[in-house]
């Protein structure tokens, strides 16, 4: 016998309206409450913001502790992997060090010259202060590529601040709580950073691809971008200082991809950077 429309409605009613055994809340009631939270969240309702900040503060700490065993397994796996390729790495690093030593003196000279020329041009110089922060949560969900750090408004962290790993840019602060903050990684689809490509001083916008690399957007086809060109922040928009290294261009058939200098899976400590304009 074919189930009738009434049977379907009765089953739906029974599933959503009837309070199940040992259930304190009705499913439909909670579903409506969730929708209400989503809608109020969309319109930045103050009470929802407070609720979010409170949950953030508690959950980030608990989550940090809860993810310790899994983190430990991950670190051990990587440690073993590093041991296996230790000797080859050592030889490569030795060669690289020799090259860098010879470049160092050249850099010191160029830095001094750059400062002098900026003074002549009356350009702005930046001095930076760094706050070291520990990464509490670094889970990469398919929805958002972000990390949580253990510094917040208590440590003068503000939205939009640059976050570095060594001296490379890894993302910017997008959410600030009292003792924690969320950093949107460069690899997130929603991350858009104004950049300069050198050599050539070509301006572009760098967006994440949702994986572990970036894509250059809003760039004309006739601009000659060489493979392995370096991508820096351009400083346009005034949020980030210009000249922070980001990654290297890897050319594909249709687009210019950027391989980031930062390995997003290895983040333990990061630096949140405050840039202060210096008077010439």
């Amino acid at each position, binding site marked *: 016998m074919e189930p009738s429309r009434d049977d379907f409605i009765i089953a739906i009613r029974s*599933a959503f309206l009837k309070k199940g055994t040992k259930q304190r809340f009705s*499913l439909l009631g*909670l*579903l409506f409450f*969730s929708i209400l939270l*989503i809608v109020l*969240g969309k319109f930045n309702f103050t009470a929802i913001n407070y*609720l979010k900040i409170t949950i953030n503060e508690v959950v980030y700490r608990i989550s940090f502790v809860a993810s310790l065993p899994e983190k430990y397994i991950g670190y051990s796996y990587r440690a073993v992997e590093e041991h296996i390729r230790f000797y080859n790495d050592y030889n490569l690093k030795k060669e690289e060090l020799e090259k860098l030593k010879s470049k160092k003196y050249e850099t010191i000279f160029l830095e001094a010259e750059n400062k002098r020329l900026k003074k002549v041009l009356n350009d702005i110089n930046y001095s930076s202060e760094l706050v070291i922060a520990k990464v509490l949560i670094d889970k990469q969900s398919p*929805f958002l590529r972000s990390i949580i750090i253990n510094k917040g408004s208590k440590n003068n962290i503000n939205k939009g601040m640059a976050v570095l790993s060594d001296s490379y840019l890894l993302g910017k602060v997008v959410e600030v709580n009292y003792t924690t903050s969320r950093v949107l990684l460069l690899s997130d689809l929603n991350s858009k950073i104004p950049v300069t490509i050198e050599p050539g001083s070509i301006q572009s916008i760098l967006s994440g691809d949702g*994986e572990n690399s970036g894509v250059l957007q809003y760039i004309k086809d006739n601009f000659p971008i060489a493979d392995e060109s370096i991508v820096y922040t351009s400083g346009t928009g005034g949020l980030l200082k210009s000249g922070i290294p980001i990654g290297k261009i890897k050319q594909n058939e249709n687009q210019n991809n950027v391989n980031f200098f930062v390995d997003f899976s290895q983040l333990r400590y990061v630096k949140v950077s405050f840039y202060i304009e210096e008077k010439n």
Partner: protein
Amino acid sequence: MSEFKKRSIVNNLLRLAPLIILYISVLNEIDLNYLKIISLNFPFILIYYWSLRKSESLGYGYIFVAGLINDVVTGLPIGISSFNYLLICGFAAYLRTITLRPNLIKDWVFFLFTILVVNSSTYSVLNIFFSVDLDYNNLFINIFFTFIFYIIFANIFLIYQNKFFKESND
């Protein structure tokens, strides 16, 4: 007497295991993303299975709170995961109501339909309502592996259920 008391505490803990695992999984965001090619939504599997087979083992209120925690950990707008989880409970409750003889394969197929609906709603809400870009491929991979892994976890849960929830099944 004390032996009896100890046994009842252990029994209670074993019965609470699905709820404990749910909270660990949302706090720890178990998704196997570090394996690069595999990504799955473990809470979907857990909530669907236990809501279907032993609905009283996970309270709706607890599921709602787990959703809020997941939103905070993954950085989604608050309420989205709670809505998804409760929607899964609703689909599971519907299937439970219309099924006379439970069958793992039928549950599995209906699970695919459920996660397709739930992920579609998430995609729509995030994209239209919050203007958040999502990678469609990542989402598809997530749905695919969540579906594939359901049958594996369902069998593990079934063994667990038969062992520790036996007397209430009879």
